């Protein structure tokens, strides 16, 4: 549905994004993840046709961004970082205006307006002037604006920013409800949000894509060993040394409390039964035994820090090859 091919954007001498390539399938929700200033907004602006890329092409629903920009614009609903609202219009006036601007057939305008007002819970403020609304409502009006012409593609730049936790959950539900019928790209720097909503994530850092996969696979791919957290009631002396005698255990480290230990063992093995048996035999009071999976936070930090180390390594000795080649990370 969306195909981004080798796009590069330069602002003068500053390289905002370089050789960014990814595809989004119909009905998929793609999370665009990265620290602030990584190039998320730039990439989204290029896809929406707000600004042209310095190099590379974008295709949306088979239309090329240079040959048929208007066809692309008709098919995209876009929520920029700050919602583009006219302070002096009421919510209904504004939505009618945007619907007409997006060339929604006049007969469909009232129906779509009623639908998005319902979908985003704007009924109570529909006749109020946008300038008087709270931030949460403005964000919702911004999202309503992106949805009004029922576009097959939605580009949402940090859709939950500035909302309270309840509103965040509501907006996430709305976005998840769009999956299947709509293709969505959303950017965020909140990792749990990407895990919660997205089918796939693209991690971008300093203008380059550093990883692209499903949230689950990303975390399993970067895991080098299995980890298990064990909590017992009365840990005896040299408890951790005793634990390391279990066959297969690589390392035992102290967890967040004295009662908790983190046991690390080789990937592909399952020592849970052995560990449980060992603890019960010792009679120390087994309280909890749970596997630890790498969260997206860990993945993210690992990737962006690897990138940093890589940059340092290259700065130090340009000829030496870093231990982890870029290709491995971006295409694995």
């Amino acid at each position, binding site marked *: 549905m969306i195909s981004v091919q080798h796009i590069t954007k330069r*602002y003068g001498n500053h390289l905002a994004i370089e050789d960014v390539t990814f595809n989004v399938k119909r009905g998929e929700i793609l999370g665009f993840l990265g620290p602030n200033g990584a190039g998320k907004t730039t990439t989204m*602006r290029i896809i*929406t*046709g*707000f*600004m*042209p890329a310095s190099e590379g092409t974008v295709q949306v629903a088979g239309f090329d961004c240079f040959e048929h920009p*208007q*066809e692309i*614009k*008709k098919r*995209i609903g*876009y929520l*920029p*970082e*700050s919602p*583009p*609202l*006219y*302070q*002096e*219009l009421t919510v209904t*006036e504004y939505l009618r*205006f*945007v619907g*007409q*601007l*997006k*060339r929604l057939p*006049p007969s469909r305008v009232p129906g779509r307006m009623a639908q998005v007002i319902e979908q985003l819970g704007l009924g109570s403020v529909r006749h109020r002037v946008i300038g008087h609304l709270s931030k949460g409502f403005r964000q919702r009006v911004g999202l309503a*604006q992106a949805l009004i012409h029922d576009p097959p593609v939605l580009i949402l730049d940090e859709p939950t920013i500035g909302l309270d936790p309840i509103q965040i959950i509501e907006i996430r539900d709305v976005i998840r409800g769009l999956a299947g019928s709509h293709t969505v790209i959303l950017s965020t720097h909140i990792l749990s949000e990407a895990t919660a909503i997205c089918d796939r994530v693209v991690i971008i850092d300093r203008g380059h894509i550093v990883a692209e996969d499903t949230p689950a696979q990303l975390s399993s791919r970067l895991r080098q060993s299995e980890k298990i957290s064990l909590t017992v009631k009365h840990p005896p002396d040299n408890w951790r040394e005793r634990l390391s005698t279990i066959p297969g255990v690589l390392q035992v480290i102290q967890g967040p409390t004295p009662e908790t230990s983190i046991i690390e063992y080789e990937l592909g093995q399952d020592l849970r039964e052995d560990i449980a048996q060992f603890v019960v035999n010792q009679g120390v009071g087994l309280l909890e035994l749970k596997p630890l999976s790498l969260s997206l936070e860990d993945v993210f930090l690992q990737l962006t820090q690897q990138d940093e180390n890589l940059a340092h390594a290259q700065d130090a000795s340009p000829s030496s090859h870093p231990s982890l080649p870029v290709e491995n990370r971006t295409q694995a």
Partner: protein
Amino acid sequence: MTPVNTLIAKELRCFVVSPVFYVVGAVFLFISGFLAHLMVVNAGQQALRFLQMQNTYAQLNLNELVFRPIFHSLAIVLIFLLPMLTMRLFAEERKLRTMELLLTSPIGINEIISAKFMSVLIIYLGLLGLTGLTPFVLSFYSTFHVDPILTGYLGLALQGAFFLSCGVLASTLTENQIVAAFLSFGIIIVFWLLGGLGSILGDTTLGAVISYLSFVEHFDRLVRGLLEAKDIVYYLSGTVLMLFIAHRVVDSHRWQ
């Protein structure tokens, strides 16, 4: 509704709720009414003096005594008032980041610019139309030539359109409305002063070219009742040129 009409309607809606529109409208109408009053009183005094000196009744030329001064004064008032109407058109869209909505909608930059220009032109022509009350009322009490009034109004309409296009251009150049207003005064005043420079240079080719570039002599001819193609071409080409540059400016923002 086409997107252009939609945009015009939205701009008009924004004007109607904006205090700037009411202030500009009130000042413009007050000045034009006050000028008409002054000129009519002045014409009456001149008639009285004429009657005392010559002891005869002479037909007063209202076109010369009333309308021509009104047209010239209003043209100057427009230099200061019209930038107030155009200053927000693009500056505000950039400041509030709503330009992003317009530029990602299936509507071209030329359509955005023409819609904004049309909306402000409609507002201006509406205000100008209200000043037509003066000749209308005077026509009941006196006789005068209608043709120079019509060409005078045509001149004010064309001159206003040109000023508005300068204002649209100024508004695309900055995010700050005050800066946009002053910038458009600046552009218009340069075109005004070119007239003075042209007359200093006199009958040389350069003088003629510079005089042509200024609106002063074009407006003067229209107010005197001379309807010539070159004056109309001047205003229309000037307006189109300003809007074209505005188009380039908006387009160039996309690359930055």
